[in-house]
């Protein structure tokens, strides 16, 4: 009888142990507390039962420990899986308890943050990052300015974000065969009083239109000759300094005046041989909508700085630009026309006197299908240090946009150099961007 009972009791205990993983610890405590009264009712060899109980308790403790460790490990794993996208971001990063038996357990008792989670707040504040590749292939004969057959001209890396409630920052790093350089890196203060907008850093100077554009935003595979002859090359005027612009409010049109001061060394046009040899720039831009689909954009710029002849010699630049745009709103993604011209005058003081030089380009671009653009450009420019040397020539351009994020461009270019040589070239350009590149100003 007694033996049978003990067997039954044992079986019941085993069943309880088997159920343990499913029952919370305190529930088990209750059931084990409830068990002894049942045993007391049958005083059949208490010594044996006690031994049995001790053995079972040890077994149970071992099982509980192993289950506990496995559960903790599982929780940690679950916590590390990226949370499904939820509209609201958690204020604190998800945490995991340190597994009881895990390495490092016992040291930090507080929950550990889980890194590598895309919703972690440290990554939310990362700037928008983008990379734009600019690949250029040139075919044809050019004895004056030969270009390589294939060239990764530039990989532009941009980092853009809001700094604080008062400012935003934009960095553009250009990696090219010449090396890595800061193409632009500036902070913009957008909430100044008095309708002012200030930029501080290294930036493209607001001289005319093409000088302010990044290479991947021009409708051509190359840069106009006038920019190379008078504004110091493909990079143009680009320097460290301060720019302040103001809206001149009036009821008729958009009018903006900009004043800038720079270190005084940029692209071979200006060269500061003394620290005080700063260059300065002034620009006025007027814009008016002619109708909802057409508008006219006019600008005048003036820049002055010291040149490489010496501190006593200056170069003065004057520019005029005009842009006409047409883009019907109802068919904005299929049709547009941009006509643009820029005129530039340079007055460079040299030991043999002042050299006045003039350069210009006129260009037109027409979108004739959702992904297709055709364009023409005519260039003519004297050289900054000898106005008797004139380079000129036309270009015809076709651009295909597979999407907003890539462009394939073909350009036929004829250049009649002052030296007498004529170059006929075909350029192929591939532009491709990844990441989040901020929208460009109009």
């Amino acid at each position, binding site marked *: 009888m007694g033996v049978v009972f003990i067997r039954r009791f044992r079986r019941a205990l085993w069943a309880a142990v088997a159920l343990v993983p499913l029952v919370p610890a305190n529930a088990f405590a209750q059931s084990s507390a409830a068990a002894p009264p049942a045993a007391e009712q049958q005083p059949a060899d208490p010594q044996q039962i006690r031994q049995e109980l001790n053995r079972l308790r040890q077994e149970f403790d071992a099982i509980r420990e192993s289950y506990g460790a496995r559960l903790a490990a599982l929780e940690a794993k679950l916590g590390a899986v990226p949370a*499904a*996208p939820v*509209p609201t971001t958690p204020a604190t990063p998800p945490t995991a308890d340190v597994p009881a038996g895990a390495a490092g357990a016992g040291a930090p008792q507080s929950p550990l943050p889980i890194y590598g989670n895309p919703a972690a707040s440290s990554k939310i504040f990362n700037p928008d990052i983008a990379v734009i590749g600019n690949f250029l292939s040139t075919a044809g004969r050019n004895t004056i300015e030969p270009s390589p057959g294939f060239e990764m001209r530039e990989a532009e890396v941009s980092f853009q974000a*809001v700094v604080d*409630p*008062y400012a*935003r920052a934009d960095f553009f790093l250009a990696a090219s065969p010449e090396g890595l350089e800061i193409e632009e890196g500036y902070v*913009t203060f*957008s*909430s*100044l009083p008095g*309708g*002012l*907008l200030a930029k501080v850093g290294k930036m493209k100077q607001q001289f005319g239109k093409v000088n302010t554009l990044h290479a991947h935003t021009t409708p051509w595979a190359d840069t106009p000759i006038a920019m190379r002859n008078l504004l110091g090359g493909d990079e143009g005027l680009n320097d460290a300094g301060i720019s302040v612009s103001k*809206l001149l*409010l009036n009821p008729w049109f*958009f009018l*903006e005046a900009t004043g800038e001061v720079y270190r005084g060394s940029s692209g071979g046009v200006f060269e500061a041989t003394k620290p005080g040899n700063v260059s300065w720039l002034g620009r006025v*831009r007027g*814009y*008016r*909508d002619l109708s*909802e689909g057409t*508008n006219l*954009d006019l600008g005048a710029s003036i820049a002055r700085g010291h040149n490489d002849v010496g501190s006593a010699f200056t170069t003065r630049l004057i520019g005029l630009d005009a842009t006409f745009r047409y*883009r019907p*709103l*109802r*068919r*904005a*993604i*299929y049709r547009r026309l941009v006509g643009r011209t820029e005129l530039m005058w340079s007055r460079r003081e040299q030991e043999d006197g002042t050299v006045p030089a003039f350069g210009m380009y006129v260009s037109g671009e027409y979108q004739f299908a*959702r*992904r297709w653009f055709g364009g023409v450009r005519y260039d003519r420019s004297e050289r900054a240090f000898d106005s008797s040397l004139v380079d000129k020539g036309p270009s015809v351009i076709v651009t295909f946009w597979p*999407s*907003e*994020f890539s462009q394939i461009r073909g350009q036929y270019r004829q250049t009649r150099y002052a030296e007498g040589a004529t170059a006929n070239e075909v350029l192929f350009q591939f532009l491709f961007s*990844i990441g989040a590149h*901020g*929208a*460009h*100003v*109009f």
Partner: protein
Amino acid sequence: MRRFILALLAILALLTDATAFAAIKVVTTTEDLAALVTEIGGDKVTVESIAKGYQDPHFVEAKPSFIIKLHGADLLVVVGRELEIAWLPPLITQSRNAAVQPGGKGYLDASQGVRILDIPTGQITRAMGDVHPSGNPHYWLDPNNGRIMAKSIQNKLSEMSRGDAAYFAQRYEDFDKRLAEAEKRWKAAMAPYKGLKVVTYHRSWPNFADAFGLDVIGYVEPKPGIPPSPAHTLDLQQEMKRQNVKILLVEPYFDLKTPNAISRETGAKVVVLPPSVGGVKEITSYIQLFDYDINLLVSTIKQTGTR
């Protein structure tokens, strides 16, 4: 003399009072938002929209004339969900107006609290086309979302002009009542066509389809923002024939060449359905937008003889 000075002071006080109660200048990115602001703000606000209703709101040009509008604005209301990402940020930066900067006291993202569909899960890449990582931004096409947007606008306007809070609340109540009545009308008109299969050009209509029981089975665009391709068009035509789809919805700013070709091949009717207030001249309010769209849709469905 003394009386004269007093009179002058009184006039001055009146004048300053008049400017203190000047209307709140609101700029919105789309005409739908402008219409809702007018519903709530009444004559206590002046409203201007940057994009026109017949324009693709993804591809607006950041014209300098908009900078002037933003410069003078007390409040900027945006659709959000990256709809305006390609053109609004540079306008805001150049506006030289601290109030309308994101997070400023005069900036309202109307997508707060509304029901957003098509929120992508998992890895997003540009191989999917123009995906919006935070969900489909065409959410205003569900009247219930319109109600929530109107409420956000009411809260914002009340915050900006506490004295008019009761006025805005009363206008909201009125709008809410009219919208609820109209909703009954629209739901009743669409009820016989519940589950009707349609194809749309762009993914502009998930909220509309959801609200009025349409089943969008495909798109003319192979991927959002990617123009139609011959292979995809062929697949779509086969699918439309197989499922007997007789309605093809096109936004007014898309070319009709491909939709018309599909229509000839499948016998489906092309419906140019404005997704925004101002899409056609007759639509000047949020409620009229649905009136117009549902009338047009129902009459076209009747022509096709489906059900």
